[in-house]
Structures are given as structure tokens and as C-alpha cells.
């Protein structure tokens, strides 16, 4: 009846049980709160079923923020274990639990924090930047989000029901195969990524079409804001790379569920093929994350330098070059697999070549500031932190791109330090910069600067303390993922790294405080005209927060940095505007239902509940068919309503 699912799946060690009970109680309080104040209906109507990309973006950010806390908790446990597990002591958790913790830390941070936050920012900003009222496929966008949420739900459910993968964030076979890993952990990993991965693919297609087909009249490709270019490149990578992930995971799932031998150790299975495939997705994945972050910085630097972006064409060429090259370097993740010298040298050299366009971007940012008027606001602080850490991490990357050096640092903590430098210094700082920069656009008030600065300094200090010791440990010969080590000389460095992790958490605490304080003091930081930073791109030309349809009159673009040019010419007040009725897509709950049943299907496959697999799959397909047979439904905002909204906004501006 319930396949592998027995009551035993709910039994855990005491620490986990306490965590689960505490989380459940918290969730219960939340749910009671929602029902007591009748918020659930409001959430459903205004948020869950909304197809407005700005609202979907906010939901992405909320989920990503929650998962950041989960990932940080994992990180703290990892640090606590490694700081204590030396010599006779075996630390606070056993090896299996430790391995589950770091596997979930990596999976969580990449797929559900970094990807989630970037999709959030892209959803909120991109349609406005291209001067559009919406994305190309609003309903598909909602489905993407809910599939992403389905993945989040599955990975978190693994704590309560069963266990999570202990095979690392990329689950190399044969360790992740049935012979060595018979439990449900790896299945949870596979299926949460399958579900979320399909959502990501759909998002990729959606934004490519939005960028190519929905731009405001006059906005040629070379007049697009650079963030739009970065998203176009990143989403192209999503569209080409995510099918590889989906196919690879499907093969692994078939191995584990119906006994095929794609990647098994025996019967002609080829684990090396898996490692090639997973990195053929995995390397583009890191560029999927970093390119939008580059885009964010390329928006911020010109604005806070009061100067045009230096070398726009170079920047575009560099983005496209990185996009293409990112598919030609995957083998550098396993120089040590025994490929010949020719192959290793080729992939090593291709990897170094990527540093050329990346370096060009750094120089162009520097020269955007050169002869500018630099305002050192929080987004700029994140940018400066990014340049420093990213350059250092980049050097470590070039070192490891040389196969003969990689042979001595591969899979060591040096590698771990390197990719954290790139992902925290690049992607995470980019997300924070973008969040601070665009926050006022969507709330109507800016974030508290002082607390933002404190958060920055805590982050950067914690980051140095957490990762410099790891570079050293790597050179000392410490490999990654050790639940225990013998050399007492390593412990001091692990302790410092743990202190660093705690300081990073304090930084996150400071950011939460910053948001709360900013909301409480919003009256002091109101953004009346919708343009707090003297922005350059179209999104700053609307009021803050923008109306659902973004633009009452679709702007016509004549130049790059259109809004800057408009302001330069003088913002002439348009008179006698004739407003027209605007169609916005009606709310839809299809996304939620598709995700619920797709996740249920995944859950049934994980636990081998055959009847539920069939039922859930059929229902999912039926819902999709039903959805596809219906025409798009719109709500119409009449011309009069549009006029009222616009006039009210105008009044606000005048009497501010």
C-alpha cells in the first residue's frame, strides 16, 4: 500500500527530531495565524495565484531567503563538526548525518537560494527594463515558480520523512547507485532537482522569448540595458544546459528504480559518463548564476558613478563569449580521472580563455567609475567587495585550470574555498547589491543605509575568516567532506572558519534587522518619484511601487540609458494623454495544482508507492491538457481606471 514508506521513516536521532518538532510548531503557529486573521484567502488571491511577474519575483525571493537560513544552518553544522572532530573526538554528528548535511547544503544553496533569488530579481526587473507590461508567458511563469517550490518542498520533506542523500551535491555514481546507497536519500535529491529543474527550463524559455519579442518599440538589441543582455545569455544557458541535467537525473533514477545500468559499477554501466554529463550541465550552471550577477553590477556601477557604462559593446561581446565558452570547459572538474594529457591540456586552456572576457568586464567596470562621481552606497559596497573577492577567487581558478597544479589541490579544501569565493563574492554579493538597489522600486522606500553597511562589513569579515583558513587547509592536504581528521594542527584553522561562519550569520541577522527597521521607518525613506538613485534605465521612470501593468503608455526607446537621456532633455510633462484599456492576465491556480501533483508523483516514485505514481501522473497530465485547451483569460483594466491610477500617482509626485 505505501511501498517503502513505513513508520520507521519518521524515526530520527534526537537532534533531528527536536529540529523537526520545533519547525513543525513554528509552521503550525504560522498556519493558525494565517487562518485566524483570514490571511490565507488574501494570500491565495493576491499572491499564490497571481500571474504578475513582480509578485512571482517576490515569492521567489521569500522562498530563497528561507532556504538561505536552512543552508546557513547546514553550514554552521558543517563548521561545528569539523572544528570539533579531531583525534579521539568524533564531533557532534555521525558520518552519515554529516554527509547528508553537506549534500543538502550544496544542493540548497545552488538550486534553491542562488537560482531562486536570481529568478526573483529577473522576474521583478526584466519586464520593466525592456519596457514591457508582462512576460511572454505569464501562466508558464507561475508554473515555473510552483515547480521550483515543489522541489523546495521535497528536499525539506526529506528531513521529516526518510533521509537525504549522503553522496555530495552532485551524487556521483556508483556511490549514488542502489548497490552503495539503497535508501531514499538519493531519490529525494534526484526528484527535487527534476521537479525544480523543469521549472528552471520553462523560466529560461519564458525570458528568452520575453527579451526577444516583448521589448519596447525602438529598443534594438544593442540598446538593451546590460542586465537584459546578461539575462538573455544566462537563460540561453539554462535552455541548453538544463535538459542535460534532466536527462542525466532521469537515467540515474531509472538505474535506481527499475534496475537499468546506465551508471552502475558493473553490467557495462559507465559512471564516468555521468560525471561528464553532470558537469556538462554543472559548469554552464555556474555561469547561469554569475552572468545575471555581472548584469546587476553593470547596472549599479554606472548609476552610482553617474556615468555611462564603459565599453558597452565590449561588455556584450564578453557576455556572449563567456556564454559560448562555458560549454567547452566541463572536463576541468575531473582532470584527475585519467584522461590523456592532450585532453587535459585542451580543457585547461579553454578554462583560462574564459578569464579573458571576465577580466575585460572588470576593467570596464573600473573605467566606468573612472572620471565619474562615485556614491558609495550599500550596493556599491557590495560591488567593491565583489571585485576584490572575485579577483582573488579568479586567480585561484586560473591556478586550478592548470591540470598539473589541479592534481595537487583537486577535491581539497582549496577547491572548496575557491568556489565559495566565486559564488559568495560573485553571485551572493550580486544578489544583495541588486536587492538593495531595486528594493525601493517595489516598496516605495529605500533600505536603511547604516544597517546595510554593517551587514556588508560583517559579511566581508566573516567571509575572509571562513574561507582564508580553507585555502590554507587545502594546501595542508585536507580534503573536502571530512567528518573527521587526525592532524591536530588543522584544528585551529577549522575553528577560525567556524568563527567566520558565525560572523556571516550575524551579517544575515543584520540584513533581516535592516529590512524590519526599514519597514518601520519607511516614512523617512520614502521614494516619491520612483527614482531614488538617479537611475538610467526605464524601470526608474515609473512610480514606486509600479502599477500591475508597469507602463500605462508603452515607452518608445531612442537610446541606450533611455531614462537618463529623457531626464537630460528635461522631463516634460505630457498633456492630453489618451489612456487606453490594458489587459492583464487573470489569476490562475493551474501552477499550484500542476506542482502539487507533480511533487506527489515524485514522492510516490521515491517511496515506490505504485498506485500513487500512476494516479498522480494521470492527474498531472489531465490538468495540463485541461489547461492547454483553455484560451488565455484576461482582466481588463479600463482606460478610466488606468487614468485614475496614473493621476493619483502624479498627484503623489506633485505634493510630495
Amino acid at each position, binding site marked *: 500500500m505505501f511501498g517503502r514508506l513505513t513508520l520507521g521513516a519518521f524515526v530520527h536521532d534526537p537532534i533531528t527530531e527536536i529540529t523537526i518538532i520545533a519547525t513543525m510548531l513554528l509552521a503550525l503557529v504560522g498556519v493558525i495565524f494565517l487562518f485566524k486573521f483570514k490571511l490565507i484567502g488574501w494570500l491565495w488571491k493576491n499572491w499564490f495565484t497571481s500571474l504578475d511577474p513582480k509578485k512571482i519575483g517576490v515569492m521567489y525571493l521569500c522562498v530563497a531567503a528561507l532556504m538561505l537560513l536552512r543552508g546557513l544552518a547546514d553550514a554552521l553544522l558543517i563548521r561545528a563538526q569539523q572544528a570539533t572532530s579531531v583525534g579521539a573526538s568524533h564531533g557532534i554528528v555521525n558520518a552519515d548525518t554529516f554527509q547528508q548535511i553537506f549534500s543538502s547544503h550544496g544542493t540548497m544553496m545552488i538550486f534553491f537560494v542562488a537560482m531562486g533569488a536570481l529568478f526573483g530579481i529577473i522576474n521583478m526587473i526584466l519586464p520593466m527594463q525592456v519596457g514591457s507590461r508582462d512576460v511572454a508567458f505569464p501562466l508558464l511563469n507561475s508554473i515555473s515558480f510552483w515547480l521550483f517550490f515543489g522541489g523546495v518542498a521535497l528536499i525539506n520533506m526529506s528531513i521529516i520523512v526518510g533521509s537525504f542523500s549522503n553522496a555530495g551535491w552532485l551524487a*556521483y555514481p556508483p556511490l549514488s547507485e542502489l*548497490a552503495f546507497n539503497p535508501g531514499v536519500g538519493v531519490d529525494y535529491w534526484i526528484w527535487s532537482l527534476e521537479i525544480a529543474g523543469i521549472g528552471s527550463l520553462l523560466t529560461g524559455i519564458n525570458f528568452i522569448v520575453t527579451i526577444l519579442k516583448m521589448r519596447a518599440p525602438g529598443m534594438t538589441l544593442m540598446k538593451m540595458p546590460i542586465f537584459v543582455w546578461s539575462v538573455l545569455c544566462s537563460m540561453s544557458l539554462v535552455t541548453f544546459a538544463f535538459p542535460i541535467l534532466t536527462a542525466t537525473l532521469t537515467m540515474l533514477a531509472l538505474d535506481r528504480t527499475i534496475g537499468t*545500468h546506465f551508471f552502475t559499477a*558493473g553490467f557495462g554501466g559507465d559512471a564516468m559518463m555521468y560525471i561528464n554529463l553532470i558537469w556538462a550541465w554543472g559548469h554552464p550552471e555556474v555561469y547561469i548564476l554569475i552572468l545575471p550577477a555581472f548584469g546587476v553590477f553593470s547596472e549599479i556601477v554606472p548609476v552610482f558613478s553617474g556615468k555611462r557604462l564603459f565599453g558597452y559593446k565590449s561588455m556584450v561581446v564578453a557576455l556572449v563569449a563567456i556564454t559560448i565558452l562555458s560549454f567547452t570547459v566541463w572536463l576541468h572538474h575531473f582532470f584527475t580521472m585519467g584522461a590523456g594529457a592532450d585532453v587535459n591540456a585542451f580543457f585547461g586552456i579553454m578554462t583560462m580563455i574564459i578569464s579573458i572576457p571576465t577580466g575585460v568586464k572588470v576593467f570596464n567596470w573600473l573605467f566606468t567609475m573612472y572620471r565619474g562621481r562615485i556614491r558609495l552606497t550599500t550596493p556599491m559596497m557590495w560591488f567593491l567587495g565583489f571585485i576584490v573577492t572575485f579577483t582573488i577567487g579568479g586567480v585561484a581558478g586560473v591556478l586550478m585550470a592548470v591540470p598539473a597544479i589541479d592534481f595537487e589541490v583537486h577535491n581539497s579544501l582549496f577547491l572548496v574555498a575557491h568556489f565559495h569565493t566565486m559564488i559568495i563574492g560573485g553571485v551572493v554579493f550580486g544578489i544583495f547589491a541588486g536587492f538593495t538597489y531595486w528594493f525601493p522600486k517595489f516598496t516605495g522606500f529605500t533600505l536603511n543605509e547604516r544597517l546595510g553597511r554593517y551587514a556588508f562589513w560583517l559579511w566581508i569579515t566573516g567571509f575572509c575568516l571562513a574561507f582564508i583558513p580553507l585555502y590554507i587547509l587545502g*594546501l595542508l592536504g585536507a580534503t573536502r567532506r571530512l567528518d573527521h581528521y587526525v592532524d591536530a594542527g588543522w584544528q585551529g584553522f577549522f575553528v577560525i572558519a567556524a568563527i567566520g561562519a558565525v560572523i556571516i550569520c550575524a551579517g544575515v541577522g543584520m540584513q533581516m534587522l535592516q529590512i524590519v527597521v526599514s519597514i518601520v521607518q519607511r516614512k523617512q525613506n520614502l521614494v516619491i518619484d520612483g527614482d*531614488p538613485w538617479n537611475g538610467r534605465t526605464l524601470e526608474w521612470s515609473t512610480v514606486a511601487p509600479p502599477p500591475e501593468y508597469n507602463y500605462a503608455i508603452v515607452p518608445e526607446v531612442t537610446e541606450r540609458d533611455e531614462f537618463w537621456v529623457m531626464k537630460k532633455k528635461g522631463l516634460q510633462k505630457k498633456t492630453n494623454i489618451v489612456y487606453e484599456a490594458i489587459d492583464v492576465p487573470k489569476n490562475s491556480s493551474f501552477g499550484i495544482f500542476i506542482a502539487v501533483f507533480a511533487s506527489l508523483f515524485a514522492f510516490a516514485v521515491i517511496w515506490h508507492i505504485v498506485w500513487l505514481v500512476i494516479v498522480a501522473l494521470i492527474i498531472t497530465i489531465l490538468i495540463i491538457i485541461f489547461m492547454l485547451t483553455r484560451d488565455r483569460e484576461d482582466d481588463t483594466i479600463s482606460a478610466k481606471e488606468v487614468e485614475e491610477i496614473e493621476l493619483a500617482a502624479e498627484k503623489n509626485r506633485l505634493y510630495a
Partner: protein
Amino acid sequence: MLMYAEGLKVYPRNVSKAYKVVLFLAIVCGIIAVFVHLLHGVNFPFLNPKGQIAYQERQLLIFTSLLSLVVVIPVFLMLFFIVTRYREGNKKARYEPDWDHSRVLEALWWGLPCVIILILAVVTWNTSHQLDPYKSISSSNKPITIEVVALQWKWLFIYPNEGIASVNSFDFPVNTPVNFQLTADAPMNSFWIPSLGSQIYAMPGMNTQLNLIANSIGSYNGSSANISGTGFAGMQFIAKATSQQDYNNWTKSLQDSSSVLNDTSYQSLAKPSSYVSASYYKLNDAYLYDKIVLKYMTPGNSFAN
């Protein structure tokens, strides 16, 4: 435009007060002191190589780091200069809001990295071939062959020519190239002795190779660099480089050993266990290694699924 800019909210920038600088420097110095203290007396195997391969790899690390500094130092200097000089408060600095490209400058920073990468590419191509793990090391001494099997969770070392075997510790003569043949009867592992140089994966049903040499006598720590299950942290081993005479004595003593490694004793050895102390055997089956590799190629072997 100017009017617009003046209407802007100006974010007060606390001009760097002396005490802030002092506090900052004090923290930095304190941290450096802690690091210096911790670094005192620890051994960096990669930076303190004990064999020719590790030595060449260290030289390559130093060369590449220095080459990278050619770009990194100007970037940091420019960053510092630009941010201080063109800060908003400094009205004396030039302000050219519309200056957005320069063919010369852009050619410079497309070109210069290209040159550096070209140099590095040549070095990479050459060193990848020189330091290819599969390439045998030329030496006046005749190389010895050691077959390495990664088990759950320990290392088995088989000396097919000497007819001996050992677990988690092995001896080999100094200044003599060692040709390792590697496989696994377990999930994938990575065989790594940092003091001697390169690592390579050990995979079930596969045979990989690694050539290393020790140029001074000593005991070097080795471990598995790739996660292979719950006991993987306990896969440490010792690689002992000894004099030829000591090595001969060691092999002799094992050949006379009473504990024997054959099919049966291998089966019990291969059962999962971790943090295993060293043990030594007389090898009774010269083809044991080949059998371990081939068992994953044979249909119907229950362990091989």
C-alpha cells in the same frame, strides 16, 4: 540634468575617522597574528615537496601565481586609486559622464590578458604532457609496480612482482620511480599523497595509472580525496620511502609472513570497515588485482550491480 542631480538625496558618508582606521588595522593585525601562530610548525606538503613530481608542480604553482599578479596588482591599485579619487565628495576630480569608450584602452585590456593566457597556455600544454600521471618517470633505478585497490574504506597495496601485499601502509625505495596501477572494489576514490604530487581517481571496473617518485626518505601521509561512503574519512594511509636495503628487508619479511592474501582472505578484507590499522600479507594469488578489475565486467556477479 544638474538640477535633477542636486535634488538627490545625498547619503552621508562618514569621512574616515582616525579611530575607525585604527580599529580596522588592529583587527587585521590581530587576525594575521592568529594565523601566524597557527602556521607555526605545520607542514605544507604541497609547498614542501618530497619528490620530483610534487616539486615540479610546486614550481608551476609559483610561476602561475606570479604571472596572475601581473593582472591582479594593477586591478587592485586602479580600484583603490579610482574609488578614492572619483568619490562624490571630491569635486576637483574630472567628471565626464558621457565618456564611455576608448579603442586604445579596450584593445589594451583585451590584448594584455590574451598575451598572458597565451604564455600560460604554452606552459599548460607542456606541463600537462611532462607531468601526465600516466607518463613513466625516467631514472637510473628500475621502477617498481604497486597495484592499488580502494576498498570500503581502506587501501590495499599489492606488489605483484614481489608477491606481497599490505593495507593502509606501504614501503617503497627512495629515488626509485613507482608505477601505481589503480582500481576500486568500492565507489570511486581519489588516491592522493600530497608530499609526492599528483592524485588520480581509483574507479571500480577501471584501471588508472599514476607515476610518482620520492627523493628523500620519510613517511608521507596519503588519503582519499573523493567521498566514497560513510567510512571515507578514515581512509588515511602511510607511504614510506625507505632505503633500498630497508625495502629489501621489508619485502623479505612479508614474503615470509604467515598471513596470506588469497581469494578467501580478500573477501573478508573487502568487507566494509574504516580506520583500519596497517596489516601485511604474503600474496598467494598473482592475478588478484586483475580479478578485482574484471569482476565488474562479469555478468551475474551480485556485488557488481
